[in-house]
């Protein structure tokens, strides 16, 4: 069972486009997601490999439609819900 992230060598994707002078983040929320993930990993809520595993478990259609940090946020909320730290209701409330 290959995962949707594992597309190395696969044909059919558009060319890789490299942004000139790409900033670390394209919006403030991306920096917040980065910071939240760093804090959760350094606090031992989950480790980096569990985080990568969670990104790879995002359903394929969602994964392909999501941006890089949208995938991060999806993986973070998935892990927090699985550990009972947040509930679906918490997430819906924002």
């Amino acid at each position, binding site marked *: *069972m*290959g995962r949707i992230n*594992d597309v*190395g*060598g696969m044909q059919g994707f558009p060319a890789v486009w490299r942004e000139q002078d790409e900033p670390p983040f394209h919006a403030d929320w991306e920096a917040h997601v980065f910071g939240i993930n760093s804090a959760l990993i350094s606090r031992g809520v989950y*480790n980096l*490999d*569990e985080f*990568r*595993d969670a990104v790879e478990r995002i359903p394929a259609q969602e994964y392909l439609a999501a941006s890089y940090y949208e995938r991060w946020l999806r993986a973070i909320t998935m892990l927090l819900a699985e550990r009972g730290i947040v509930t679906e209701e918490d997430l819906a409330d924002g």
Partner: protein
Amino acid sequence: MAEPFRIGDRVRASRVDPPHHTRLPRYARGAAGTVTALLGSHPLPDRRSRRLAADPEQVYAVAFTAGELFGEGDHTVTIDLWQSYLQPAAAEPSGAAAATGDGQ
């Protein structure tokens, strides 16, 4: 755990298709390559991603020819691979549990 490899050794990547996180990409499964560097010892991500005990094990830079991986091309692809993903190239590629760390 297999004997450690040395630079220049020919190795073959596992064919296992694990139902969990792994750092062995699909396109390199079963392919033969050459060890080009030793990259220190690190816990196997396949186990760590499942919160299983994972002692550090040797990680290697392994160079594969594009021909071996994709059937064409002149370049090489170098991948960082853990000891558990590899066996001597002379050996038959197998579905040994070692690649997922389940055999430890």
